[in-house]
């Protein structure tokens, strides 16, 4: 280093920038980065989930199906119990647009019915003379919307004096499509109620087990192992056979959801426990403890939120097993009972091989079952990946 210029000597000319200097400029972030770093955990999870295209599509499908629950009465062309005694086991009617090369708009052909005297089969043939145009936003069967008010307004109705069985009719001449739409309400909510119960049980038992540890933990873990070693379906069967026969269908419905939830919580409880075991050693948990927070507050306020996302993901993955469980129970006749109609109750009609051979449309309710189970699985997978937004 050379010594400073002698006092009184001339200063060497050099450039000095007048611009204000920000010592943190190196650390400053571009707006994009800032958005990323300041984003909340949930926001980041949403960004990650958005990239999982299949999960998003599944989510939309599920959302739409759950929306139909709110307006089953409006969407269904007929009422749940409307019988068409002259159209028993009628096959699905196809929707056409053109009649004799001329655009009519959506319409169906009427049926010609005759009984085959040789094998006593009911035979329905489309009658090309009868053109029955569909009506939209029209007045049809009277229904009571959720028991609140009466209305006759439907999305679709058959032509006056005509029929509209897009998925055929069952052994009492009831429209399968309408029953399917009503069944969605029950089948989808069974899973939701069931998972709520299992979620609560899982958090409580897993929380106790993971937070306190010791003999309590041991006891709960042994108990979980025992429950898990029971095969689910036979146990479900036994429990639902134990529901009193004189209960009304609504109580049976809640009974079944409780039974479904009672056996399912073990997986969630284990997830809660293992997460808690890891998290309770963290500094923030100790800090909360030192400040005098009660255990329930530490678990509920500090520990649970940090792995809630994982819990939601695994809960999503166990909804389908409940829906399938309800379907199986109702199929066996041990689950929901008419007049409550779920997809399983509808499939109960498709119990023997004759149905497959003669009335295959009665098996259609299996399609929404498959769609919903797949959608829940894909959505759950996506959520599970998104639950840890800091990975990668």
């Amino acid at each position: 280093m050379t010594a400073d210029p002698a006092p009184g000597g001339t200063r060497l000319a050099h450039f000095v920038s007048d611009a204000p200097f920000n010592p943190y400029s190196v650390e400053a972030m571009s707006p994009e980065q800032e958005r990323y770093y300041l984003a909340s955990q949930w926001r980041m999870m949403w960004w990650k989930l958005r990239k999982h295209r299949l999960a998003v599509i599944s989510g939309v499908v599920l959302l739409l199906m759950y929306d139909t629950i709110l307006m089953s009465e409006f969407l269904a062309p007929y009422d749940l119990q409307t019988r068409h005694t002259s159209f028993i086991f009628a096959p699905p009617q196809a929707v056409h647009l053109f009649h004799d090369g001329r655009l009519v708009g959506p319409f169906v052909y009427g049926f010609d019915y005759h009984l085959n005297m040789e094998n006593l089969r009911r035979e329905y043939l489309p009658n090309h003379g009868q053109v029955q145009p569909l009506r939209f936003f029209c007045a049809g069967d009277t229904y009571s919307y959720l028991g609140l008010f009466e209305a006759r307004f439907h999305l679709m109705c058959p032509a006056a004096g005509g029929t509209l069985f897009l998925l055929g009719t069952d052994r009492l001449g009831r429209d399968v499509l309408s029953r399917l739409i009503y069944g969605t309400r029950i089948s989808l909510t069974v899973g939701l109620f069931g998972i709520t119960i299992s979620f609560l049980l899982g958090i409580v038992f897993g929380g106790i087990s993971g937070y306190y540890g010791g003999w309590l933990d041991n006891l709960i873990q042994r108990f979980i192992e025992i429950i898990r070693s029971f095969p689910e379906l036979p146990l479900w069967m036994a429990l639902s056979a134990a529901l009193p026969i004189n209960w009304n269908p609504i109580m049976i419905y809640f009974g079944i959801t409780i039974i479904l939830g009672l056996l399912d919580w073990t997986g969630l409880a284990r997830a809660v426990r293992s997460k808690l075991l890891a998290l309770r050693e963290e500094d923030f948990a100790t800090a909360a403890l030192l400040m005098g927070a009660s255990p329930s507050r530490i678990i509920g306020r500090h520990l649970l939120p940090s792995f809630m996302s994982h819990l939601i993901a695994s809960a999503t993955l166990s909804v389908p097993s409940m829906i399938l469980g309800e379907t199986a129970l109702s199929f066996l006749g041990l689950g929901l009972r008419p007049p409550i109609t779920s997809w399983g109750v509808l499939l109960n009609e498709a119990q023997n091989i004759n149905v497959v051979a003669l009335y295959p449309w009665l098996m259609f309710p299996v399609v929404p079952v498959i769609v919903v189970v797949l959608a829940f699985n894909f959505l759950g997978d996506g959520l599970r990946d998104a639950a840890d937004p800091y990975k990668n």
Partner: protein
Amino acid sequence: MLAYTVNRMLIMIPTLLAISVITFIIIQLPPGDYLSTYVAELQSQGEKVSAERIEFLREQYGFDRPLYEQYFVWLFGMLQGDFGYSFEYNLPVSAVVGDRLWLTVIVSFATVIFTWVVSFPIGVYSATHQYSAADYTLTLIGFLGLATPNFLLALVLLYFANVTFGTSIGGLMDPQFIDQPWTWGKLGSVLEHLWVPVIVIGTSGTAGMIRRLRANLLDELQKQYVTTGRAKGLPPFRLLVKYPLRMSLNPFIADIGNLLPQIVSGAAIVSVVLSLPTTGPMLLSALRSQDMYLAGSFLMFLALLTVIGVFFSDLLLAALDPRIRLQGGATR
């Protein structure tokens, strides 16, 4: 290993006791008992049932004793091979059950094997060809198997076998072997009929197995020793089989604990549809008619089947994986 085995067996005893308590509670849950149903039925048919006879029956079946005593009678009876009395058939439970237990074991075991045999190559292929078209297709098929209620699959298969082969594939053996003692011919007939239920029940478990094997193998394939091996010039196939595949095989064994209850569940409903002479249909009818000892023995047996299956899977796992043997605990 011996210490581990003994330890593991000792754990099974309290587990089974707890299971027996739960089973007993469940079969006691329905209001009333078989006797009151039976008496009501007789009365509705116009038969007179004297109070003495009711009392006699009640005493004979032990319904007059307190619940815990009934439980101990049931439990000690089971330990001596006496499973109680089936009210509906008027026979001891062991006579009613007959071959059903063994056939259930056979079906479950065959399904486990089927699940392994199918998911192993598919899982390996999916992992080594990640994100290929075949990977996606196979995964989708697996998911479809998971999502389809297998009772319906059974029904459809039943129909198509009838149409294409002209044979009935319901049941587990040709009619002439039913209720006959076991011979080679009967065993052969059972094996011939076995494939339909096995495929139908296996579909639901296979998807999960494929996904787990694929995920495990993918994890292993990214580890450094694989890179080292490749850098040193190991041929790809040898590289795959030598280490990563072995490492990712653990879930095959360890997962029996999850797979077996699932298979037993699936078998229960599929056997109702296919009218297999296994435990499923009889359990259903026993539950419906409140034939409590019969239902109880079936529940107990199904739970026992999974407990023993898990026991063997833990032993196998300990034999395969020294880490588990040394820690003295199974990981699931």
